[in-house]
């Protein structure tokens, strides 16, 4: 790359990174990465016809293309779907690790069997591959941001029973409730429930005496003020239970 164009591109990279991240060190780092990358690309381009180089670079291109594509498709499809299912739609524990590993191994096997050297012959094909990987990277970064934002929130995975009367003992299972010396509270509507046992991953609570009956939502509030996902809970009127027994 000519010196003037190197200077222009480096300045553009510096300015863009500075605008996006507002940190000078990141901008300097990005310029360094760009300079190193362009040096590597120039080196590769200079020796691209060398037989020794071809013997080494061809397998590397094949392997790295397969790895990059496998990881990109995994990041583009599996990670967002898994996140939506386990964090947003249904708040559940993570999927078993074997599923993600099997999926990525399957993708690797499929992509490894394709000869990328015969498909990536022009600069355009490399650019398209780079663009695809970049888009998948953006999706991954968004997933990562969202995941980190929800990582330490308390989550209710299961609870039993899902309805009860006053003094009913309810067991709640989940994560991130906090240690026993940092007890939080459990609420339904604005009323606080009695806490019998408080652990990091399970709570035992008691339904208090309440005048409000019907469907409500249970929430866990930690000492740090973090609120969990709400779960439906029915407070039953004890009087209605007696009427059912009389009818029998």
């Amino acid at each position: 790359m000519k010196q003037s164009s190197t200077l222009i591109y480096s300045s553009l990279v510096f300015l863009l990174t500075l605008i996006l991240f507002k940190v000078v060190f990141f901008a300097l780092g990005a310029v360094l990465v760009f300079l190193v990358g362009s040096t590597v690309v120039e080196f590769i381009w200079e020796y691209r016809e060398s037989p020794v180089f071809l013997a080494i670079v061809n397998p590397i291109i094949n392997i790295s293309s397969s790895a990059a594509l496998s990881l990109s498709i995994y990041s583009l499809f599996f990670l967002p779907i898994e996140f939506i299912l386990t964090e947003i739609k249904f708040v559940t524990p993570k999927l078993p690790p074997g599923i993600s590993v099997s999926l990525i191994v399957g993708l690797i096997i499929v992509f490894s069997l394709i000869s990328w050297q015969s498909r990536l012959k022009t600069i355009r094909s490399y650019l398209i591959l780079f663009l695809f990987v970049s888009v998948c990277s953006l999706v991954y970064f968004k997933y990562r941001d969202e995941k980190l934002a929800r990582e330490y929130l308390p989550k209710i995975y299961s609870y039993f029973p899902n309805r009860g009367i006053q003094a009913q003992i309810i067991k709640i299972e989940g994560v991130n409730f906090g240690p026993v010396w940092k007890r939080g509270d459990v609420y339904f509507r604005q009323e606080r429930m009695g806490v019998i046992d408080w652990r990091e991953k399970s709570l035992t609570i008691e339904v208090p005496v309440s005048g409000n009956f019907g469907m409500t939502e249970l929430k866990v509030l930690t000492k740090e003020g973090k609120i969990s996902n709400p779960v439906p809970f029915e407070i039953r009127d004890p009087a209605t239970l007696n009427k059912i027994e009389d009818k029998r």
Partner: protein
Amino acid sequence: MKIHFPKFLRVISTLFLLWFGLSLAKYLSFDFALDLRLFFLAFLTPFSLYVLLEAIANRKFLWEFLKSQSRKKKTEVTSRAKSIQKRIVGFSSLFSGDLGKDLALIIGYFISSTISLILFIGKILFSKYNFLFFSLFGILFEIIYIPTSIDAILIFLTLIWVLTIRMFKFKGELSVKIALLLLVLCPYYLGRNQNFMAEKIAVWVFLFLVVGVLQIIWENRKIVE
């Protein structure tokens, strides 16, 4: 020796490269929701199977190679043992009889085998590839795992790197390029407020630059002469 399963090799190489990349990414706090231990197992199992299949497919070559190596070693050990036997017999009249000569030969074989083993271990330990591996691995280990900066370790690793350069006849520019690569990491760690890591990397950038510049000066001096 021929590679009989190139596609299998490609799959395993991709698995290993991805596992390595994911481990590095995890170290830099980029998690892909993958259990890396399970992933490594998913690489290790087919890798072991591949090694076994290649060994079976290349069994004739391997057998011939082992046979020739063992023949060579046997000749070497036997000739050394016989020369040791002669020295022992000449040293004392106790070994002049038939029994004494046999005993001297046994001692000769024992000493010769020990010498062969020591030479073999020395050849492996002091091979240039080992030096390259230990210098690069040692530097990474020092940056990542050693919580303090110990001058003796820095000097020792720098000397190992200098010896590696000598063994491989690397040019001075390589040290400068490695310094540049390491320099890229400094702003990243500074941005994450990991000043100590950035400082350690900066020390290595400086050391690589010093080695590289001195080597370039030396090379240019030789050209001028």
